[in-house]
């Protein structure tokens, strides 16, 4: 086992024994490795898990080992995990807007949906599918919402990069939607935003 393999194995072991998502920084501290080393160890781990029953889930700066969506039904049969209630179509709609626009304010969501979305957002927040991640720069410093780890789990995604890719014309529309000068200058900090994870699995459609 060379050094890189050992680091990857150590991180796998730490994630396996943790009952909560861990920050990359925590893994750095635990392994006394620098960020670059931990990031490439995580990449190696994700690669090596490709055909396995668990996968590496990543949201912003947090990582966790979760079961692979393709085998969800077996896990369900064996362990009968709690099932969250079904979401309404309004909830999915709101979730989609938050997912593609994050971090996003409530008024932006309402602008796109055309209806008051206070209740829907509160419900999604209660289910831990979206969370407040900071305050916008605009007047009144509106809350900014983003999706959560739980959101990735619900859809069985490894990361937000795997969100369903819109069809060509839809994609253009989503791009148009993105505000040119986004008010997303909040909620980062701690150098969490500088992960460059290029070459990562191209968005795949499952069908």
């Amino acid at each position, binding site marked *: 086992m060379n050094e890189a393999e050992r680091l990857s194995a150590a991180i796998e072991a730490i994630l396996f024994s943790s009952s909560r998502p861990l920050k990359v920084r925590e893994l750095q501290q635990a392994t006394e490795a620098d960020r670059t080393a931990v990031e490439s160890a995580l990449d190696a781990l994700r690669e090596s898990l490709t055909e396995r029953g668990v996968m590496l889930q990543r949201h912003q700066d947090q990582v966790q080992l979760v079961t692979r969506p393709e085998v969800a039904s077996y896990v369900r049969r064996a362990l009968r995990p709690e099932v969250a209630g079904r979401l309404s179509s309004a909830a999915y709609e709101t979730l989609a807007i938050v997912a593609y626009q994050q971090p996003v304010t409530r*008024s932006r969501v309402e602008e796109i949906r055309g209806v008051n979305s206070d209740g829907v957002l509160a419900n999604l927040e209660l289910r831990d599918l979206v969370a407040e991640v900071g305050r916008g720069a605009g007047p009144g410093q509106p809350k900014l919402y983003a999706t959560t780890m739980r959101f990735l789990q619900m859809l069985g995604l490894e990361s937000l990069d795997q969100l369903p890719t819109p069809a060509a014309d839809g994609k253009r529309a989503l791009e148009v939607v993105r505000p040119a000068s986004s008010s997303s200058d909040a909620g980062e900090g701690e150098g969490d935003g500088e992960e460059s994870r290029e070459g990562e699995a191209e968005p795949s459609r499952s069908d």
Partner: protein
Amino acid sequence: MEQPGAGRPRLDVATPVFEGPLELLLVLTEREEIDIFQVSLSALTEAYLSELSQLEERDPVEMADFLWLAARLLLLKSLRLLPGEEPEPEESDLLGWEEDVRRRLIQYRAYKEMAQEMMARAEADQTSFPPPLRDVEVEGHEQPIPVHALVVAFQSVLARLPPRPLVYVGIAWTVDQKVEVVRDRLRRGSFDLVEVILESQDRLEAAVTFMAILDLLRRGEILVRQRRSFEQIWVVAA
């Protein structure tokens, strides 16, 4: 043109029955499979009326909104029929509105599609399960007890204490005094948080004791520990 219900942060065609005002437009345009501004008004009205007839309760607001929308479309159409004339400011506004509606419709439809894909995925049991939560262990890696858990515990203890009597004869404790009392206690070893709070004569004293605990926690002088949920909460010197 003054919009009905001006000031509402929406497109002013609220149709809650369809979960979104744009949805009505969307449903109708999709049914016609044409651009909303190309659709004939009579066809739009037909489609709308057939939607309406399927509803048990008709919402007058929704119907009024539809009329408002129809009026705008009618005006737009008449503008198109009379080319070459300088549009009046009001008419320019309307043309801008048309562009706005068109843009929003495209955006909204894109999100709607994404939402449907997500729903299909979630309902196809394509979920992933996280590791289970485990009991907190005192040794080794501890999870922090969130302050609100302490507050909830405190509330339930408070309920066991008598409210302050009308004629008050007890001592008016200050937080500083209680901080000293808690420090004194700690010199004799760790203690059960609930027990100490229950020693209070009334709720005010209990609250002051709790404040003192939080204050010491903040200063890092004490640690609060609980082996697992619902067990005793111990206050120990840091």
